[in-house]
């Protein structure tokens, strides 16, 4: 007898149905465990010709191109592309700062849940493995990538139960994830990234060094950028409960300059390290955000016209 699933408000069947027409592509060859729809980093047995190379003793002679031998009297091996599946790790920041909600009342964590659950669904349904890591100051939940539907349910259950709690140690956690996850995985990070830019970019670099395809969803609210308050406010930090009473008129110019500088730095760093950076406002429709994300990746996928490999 199966237990009844909790209510999954982060899933919208209509959105899932519409986004199912798109695939989640990796921007770089992946190293999967089974055959899939993604290009592998190794040669394989697909029908797509890859290249010729000289025969070296020990090669399987079944791939020897006899026609070329007949013409040139030399042995050349005929190689084909390999298709593999994708391992994706969804990394969700569940620190207390993710409880910040915009004017619509939707918190960053709720938004991240929608993104994570939808991506997980799409990935599993295209045969890719999906894992989930939730973290605050340490890893809260670590689900390794698998591709079975039951695994997907497990992920959904986890997403449904996870709550924003504790301070964030995102830099440390990204370094840990970069080391833990096997090479050449798609790592999707959903966070507000409210930390120092330089260590964060180091963590991004670490991810790329491990040949992971790193995509980030930078969750922000317009209020955090506009800072359009008009009278004295006591700001209470969500994570540390540190309080600051200030007149927004006094601090707004400096605040906006800091935010501007931060966003520019994080965007420049992401471009430099090849991070698929997506800034998301909480009032954006998550379906459109995901559609844009998927379409952009489709263009950049290996084998796509003009895509970098």
């Amino acid at each position, binding site marked *: 007898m199966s237990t009844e699933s909790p209510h999954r408000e982060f899933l919208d069947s209509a959105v899932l149905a519409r986004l199912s027409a798109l695939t989640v592509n990796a921007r770089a060859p992946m190293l999967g465990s089974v055959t899939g729809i993604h290009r592998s980093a190794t040669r394989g047995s697909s029908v797509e010709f890859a290249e010729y190379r000289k025969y070296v003793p020990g090669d399987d002679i079944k791939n020897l191109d006899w026609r070329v031998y007949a013409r040139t009297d030399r042995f050349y091996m005929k190689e084909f592309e390999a298709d593999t599946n994708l391992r994706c790790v969804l990394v969700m920041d569940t620190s207390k700062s993710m409880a910040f909600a915009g004017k619509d009342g939707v918190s960053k964590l709720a938004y991240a849940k929608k993104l994570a659950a939808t991506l997980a669904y799409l990935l599993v349904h295209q045969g890719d493995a999906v894992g989930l890591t939730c973290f605050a100051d340490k890893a809260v939940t670590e689900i390794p990538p698998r591709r079975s539907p039951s695994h997907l349910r497990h992920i959904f259950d986890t997403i449904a139960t996870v709550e924003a709690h504790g301070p964030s140690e995102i830099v440390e956690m990204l370094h840990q994830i970069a080391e833990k996850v096997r090479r050449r995985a798609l790592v999707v990070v959903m966070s507000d990234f409210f930390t120092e830019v330089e260590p964060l970019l180091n963590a991004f670099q670490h991810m790329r060094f491990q040949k992971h395809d790193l995509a980030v969803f930078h969750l922000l609210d317009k209020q955090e950028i506009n800072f359009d308050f008009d009278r004295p406010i006591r*700001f*209470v930090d969500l994570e540390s409960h540190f309080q*600051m009473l*200030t*007149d927004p008129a*006094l*601090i*707004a110019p400096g605040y*906006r300059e*800091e935010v501007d500088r931060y966003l520019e730095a994080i965007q420049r760093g992401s471009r430099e390290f090849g991070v698929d950076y997506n800034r998301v406002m909480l009032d954006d429709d998550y379906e459109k955000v995901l559609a844009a994300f998927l379409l952009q990746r489709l263009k950049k996928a290996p084998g796509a016209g003009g895509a970098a490999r």
Partner: protein
Amino acid sequence: MTFLHSWMLWGLLAAALPVVIHLLNRLRFRSVKWAAMIFLIKAARSSTRNSRLRQYLILASRTLAVLAFALMLCRPMSGGWIGSMLAGAPDTVIVLLDRSASMETVDPRVQKSKRERALALLAGVAKETIAGSRFVLLDSATRTPQEIAGPAALPALPQTGPTDTAADMPGLFHAAIEYMLKNKTGRTEIWVASDLQASNWMPERREWTTVAAQLAAMQRVKVRVLALPGAPGRNLSVSLRDAPLRRTGDKYRLDAALEFAQGSSDAVSVPVTMTLDGVRSPFEVSMAGPRLEMVKKVELPADRLAAGGWGRIELPADENVRDNSCYFVYGTQAQFKALAVAADDKAGGLMRLAVAPSPALNRVCDRLPASAAANADFQKLALVIWQGAAPAGETEAKLRRFVEAGGVVLFLPPAGGEAAAPAPAALAAWGGAESAEPTRAFRVALWDDLDGPLAKTANGKSLPVARVEAAKRCGFAAKTESSGAPGDSGWHALATYADGKPFLLRRMLGNGKMYALTTLPLREWSNFGEGVVLVPMVQRMLEQGGSRLGGAESATCGEWTPLDEREVWNPASELSGGRNFRTQAGVYSSGSRFVALNRPAAEDAPDFVAKEKLPKLFGSVPVTITESLAAEAGTDLQSELWSLFVVLALLFLLAEAALLLGEHVPKPAAALGKI
């Protein structure tokens, strides 16, 4: 700095509004749970100091703008370079100095008289800020314009010294206007230094309308009044109401009717010194109220009377030394000779009776018809009573000279009541007669009981003027407006009926006076012939006219001039008061004749024109009134500064706007656009 609307200084509290609003806003904070605290902390570290400074500057700008606006509403005034710079230096400054006796009241705090304080304040203006302006002094005693180097020279000028005269302020303004018209003074400021004594300003006089119209017509004229009102606090004054000589057998007695006044109602004992022909004798007067009237009887031997002499009543020094003395003289009396020229025989007879001709009383009255009046010896006459149509031709010219020489004329209306068109230079002109309803006779409602022929008696009793009932009266058609010339102040009503029409009028001409009575002492006209008012009135006129004929004469300082300008009049003695009969009270002698000059009685009156009423006198001419205390604080005359505060308020608002607009605020849209 002083303020015209000082009560609006409460508005300065409004300057606290921006601060209060700022503090209230700070108290009305709300709590917000915030994730991006990292930026807040960084922003607080990097830019709060500048922003806070900017905020404080904005707050200060707002506060100062409100402050400047509130100060502007208070209409601030300032002297010194600020006031002058903003007002701009005028081309000509005409200083009208009130040198009346009341200006000699000393303020015990500064030990200076009002006149001295006014001069010091005016001298304070003599700074480089108004260099270039032409200064002209017009004092109330001489009314002769004199160009001066600047106000700094004022205190040293003889034309600014103390006097015992009255000040005719409308006349002074007329003199100023005359000077301005003659000299084309350009942009002119008239600075008036006065104590605003009502008897000097005479705000009820119609001449002010002319003054205001003439000043307004000149356009570029401003009037500044340095007002120094206020009666002295502890001051005693003595004045001589009358000093008639009585004869009892071979003895003569001078009844000096004295009036003592003090600023309080305390019971005091006043030591008085009487000097009679240089011999001092003290006596004491007890006062139980603010005023005391008494008659000091001075026995005079017959032999001394022939030589003539003088006396002085003196009080101890107090806040106003000018009102501590009064003078009287005695001497041989000339015959009081009257001439009655009456068209109506009955009226003429009654008037002759009123003169009371009697050798014992030294009074004579001749009667002549109008046609023969020109043959009379006017030089020996004290009074001419003229009943009927006003004289014309040679008689009119002789009569005019008689009055100018100090004689008195009483005009009575024609018995038929026929009206005649007045000649342009006619001494008097009668309108038509008017009869009262049988049961409602014309009654006299108002009369001057302080001065003139209807004044109270020496012992303070009023004449029963209110009992006069007229069944008929005659209109008076002569102009009652002043011509503005000195000594010719037009006809003025001394007594009026209940409906405002004149009963008795007076006109000053030269040294003499003319009176016009609008009813006749005939039974069908009025009950005036009963004599209770008529006789004392005529007797007083007779004495007024005859005072110039005797060996001793009493007059008012400033109004008296010798009949012959060539006569030399010197002080009668070292103790007899002033040295200059034109401006100083005292006893002066010329040969065997004496004249006692006393300050005008009105100078003792403690009535002042309210400064709120002054601008009405000048109509549309801009008037700035400076109060004494404020002026002393500021050390000079002041100018309005409201325009400065308007500019300041605008500057502060502009500064606030610049601070608000100059703030570099990175637009959030810029960051969002980089997505």
